[in-house]
């Protein structure tokens, strides 16, 4: 593990010593804070000289303040204590989207404690759509970039193809060990020249989430092993159970949430779905899309789906009201989502079983832009944040399943259970699923193609289009979307 040295490295002997204000440590800390303050109000693009001036100003201010406020404190070897030897005060800025989890699970604080000369600041944009728009513009102009930037899996392909040269190659840093990640995760972040531009954070191996109360009412088994067994034959079995559920289950409850969700569950189980191995757009010809479309339209036409658009307010509300019984594609991060939407009413009625064909849905990477000023320190931080221990913590604290094979085997991950889901052994369920996830080829227009097809299924469900008409619409919309 590459990052070990950074964890154990100690900077400045005075840091851990709790002292009277007289001790230099007290002052050193105040210098650091002043410096942060200046940095925060300083545009990132300032020239080195201006930064140095800002630093000098900060040190000066700190000196004045400490003299004024803590008159008794001595002011000896402060200025020569932190300059020039690589332990310079550094502020690293991390750009993420949504509730990424680094800050929430206390990883920044931990790192700053281990490396007192480093201050970490985070910029978070709630929605990845807004985040990626900003990131693209900044990458294309190579300016305004933070030291570390998160990349959602749906955008990783355009980063490895169209924008690869804007990112640092982690392979060039001997301290970074990427071998602990699952193989396909590294492959997705590797560009055609073999440069590794992103380190994985989380992945989304899928199970099937289901409501035990509705299953009971429909005369189906409720135990998660039996339910796993029920679906074990594949997606046809799953839909057959759906037919049974529709016939005998409770009134007004759909078997699954949406045709789009069904499609997503099926299509992601294949290696080639929207792109072929040569990297060409091939969604019209792949077995994955054909099967996914077939099964999803079948579910929609049999009335098994509630016909809502995933993650829209109506869908959330349906989840809270208990208007559908299963989520065919239920990755690890979805558990937290269900919990927040379904609330107390859903506690212990939701459970999670193994998927017949596990796949991956979602996940993210962190990369270091070439334009950053502190690339070495940023790479060290990125490697530390994605090291097995930290990823395990992200899982136990935030429910983001680790992309590191090593982290997946750590006891705290493997033995994890989820109280909200009848104490389901999620560590085991998802580690088994993760082992079966195929190495999917992804391309720069993956997200657009996925959304285009999901939109087509939604139109089919909501506006009673025939599957053929809906598919024609999908193709013409996607032709337009990808045409240069």
């Amino acid at each position, binding site marked *: 593990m590459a990052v070990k040295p950074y964890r154990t490295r100690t900077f400045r002997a005075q840091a851990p010593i709790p002292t009277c204000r007289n001790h230099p440590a007290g002052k050193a800390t105040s210098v650091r804070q002043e410096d942060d303050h200046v940095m925060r109000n300083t545009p990132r693009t300032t020239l080195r000289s201006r930064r140095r001036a800002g630093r000098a100003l900060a040190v000066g201010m700190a000196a004045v303040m400490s003299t004024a406020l803590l008159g008794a404190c001595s002011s000896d070897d402060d200025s020569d204590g932190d300059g020039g030897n690589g332990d310079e005060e550094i502020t690293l800025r991390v750009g993420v989207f949504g509730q990424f989890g680094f800050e929430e699970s206390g990883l920044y604080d931990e790192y700053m404690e281990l490396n007192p000369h480093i201050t970490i600041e985070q910029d978070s944009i709630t929605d990845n759509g807004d985040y990626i728009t900003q990131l693209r513009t900044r990458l*294309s102009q190579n300016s305004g970039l933070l030291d570390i930037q998160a990349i959602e899996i749906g955008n990783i392909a*355009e980063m490895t193809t*169209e*924008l690869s040269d804007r990112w640092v190659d982690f392979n060039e840093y001997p301290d970074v060990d990427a071998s602990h990640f699952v193989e396909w995760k590294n492959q997705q972040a590797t560009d055609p020249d073999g440069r590794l531009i992103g380190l994985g954070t989380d992945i989304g191996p899928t199970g099937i989430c289901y409501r035990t109360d509705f299953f009971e009412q429909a005369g189906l088994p409720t135990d998660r092993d039996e339910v796993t067994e029920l679906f074990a034959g594949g997606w046809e079995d799953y839909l057959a159970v759906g037919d049974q559920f529709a016939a005998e289950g409770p009134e007004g409850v759909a078997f699954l949430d949406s045709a789009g969700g069904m499609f997503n569950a099926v299509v992601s189980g294949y290696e080639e779905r929207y792109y072929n191995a040569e990297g060409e757009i091939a969604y019209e010809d792949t077995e994955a899309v054909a099967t996914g479309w077939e099964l999803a339209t079948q579910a929609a036409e049999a009335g098994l789906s509630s016909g809502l658009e995933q993650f829209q307010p109506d869908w959330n509300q349906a989840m809270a009201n208990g208007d559908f019984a299963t989520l065919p594609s239920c990755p690890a991060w979805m558990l937290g989502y269900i919990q927040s939407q379904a609330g107390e009413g859903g506690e212990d009625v939701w459970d999670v079983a193994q998927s017949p064909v596990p796949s991956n849905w979602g996940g993210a990477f962190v990369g270091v832009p070439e334009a950053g000023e502190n690339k070495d320190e940023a790479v060290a931080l990125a490697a530390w944040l994605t090291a097995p221990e930290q990823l395990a913590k992200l899982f136990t604290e935030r429910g983001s399943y680790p992309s590191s094979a090593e982290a997946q085997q750590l006891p705290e991950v493997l033995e994890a259970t989820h109280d909200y889901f009848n104490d389901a052994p999620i560590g085991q369920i998802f580690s088994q699923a993760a082992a079966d996830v195929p190495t999917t080829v992804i391309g720069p227009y993956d997200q657009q193609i996925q959304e285009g097809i999901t939109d087509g299924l939604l139109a089919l469900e909501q506006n009673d289009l025939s599957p053929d008409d809906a598919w024609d619409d999908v193709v013409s919309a996607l032709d*337009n979307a990808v045409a240069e």
Partner: protein
Amino acid sequence: MTTEHRQAAPPGTPGGAAPRLDKPPHGEAPAPDPKEARRQARRSRRYRWDIKYSPYGFIAPFFLFFAAFGLFPLLYTGWSSLHQVNLNNPNDLEWVGFENFTRLWDDEFFWNALANTFTIGIISTVPQLAMALGLAHLLNYRMRGSMFFRVAILTPYATSIAAATLVFVMLFGQGDYGVINWGLGLVGIDGVSWEAGDWSSQLAVSTIVIWRWTGYNTLIYLAAMQAIPNDLYESASLDGASRWQQFVHVTLPALRPTILFTVVVSTIGATQLFGEPMLFGGDESGGAQGQYQTLGLYMYETGWTNRHLGRAAAIAWTMFLLLIVIGLLYAFITRWVGRSTGEEE
């Protein structure tokens, strides 16, 4: 100017309308000192320049900013629209001539967006302005707490568009999830999938626009109404005109220029409609079949989701040209209306 008149009618106050008394008569001026004359000439030249050029100096900041943030982007967008450009590499332009424009002719999604923009524009602007006119008329009456109502009617305008749209999304929820469908259910009408249908979704988006902008237009109308002299109403009522007749024959003609102004502003707003449909659907696709995707959304989707900046620039310029055409049309109508009623422009 002769001496006889000197004693007559001296001005009461300095700076009055009468000529200054101390000014030597023409032709009797002492021989000018050349130095003094030069100085005077210089001063008057400076004075002339000041009068002539200072105003430009005063408005220059606006035009400098306009050049940097208005004109340059406009021209650069025009330049980009003639190229194939990827959002991820905007400095790498590949010349394609007018292809980005000509392809719009065969682009069903562009025409769909244009039609949606048009229909949403009509069904939001017409009721909005009609209601604003009626409300302004009501608010123009002498009544208790008129200030409160005037402020209250402007609150939607001051509300954040995102917050307001979220509320409307809940109102227009599908199936049993929306308040409106719940209300319809109470009176025995089946719920409508507002977002899924063509008309229903456009109606929903228009409702947000109407809600937001009616108050703004009301205040503009109200201000114009208060500028109408009261004697017109008095004489109208002396002639036995009813309230309604007064509204039609006094208020409306006096408001004509104001109405034209609001129509122009609303049309521009409707052509650029973006925030409401974007937040209503949650993304820029404007519904699963683009049933309420406006031109603004289509441009955004093309440029920022699908990363074709050149094509997006062409759409932007088409929208701009469209607005110019509409502007010329309105200018023509204004002139025509002004001429037909014998008013001066």
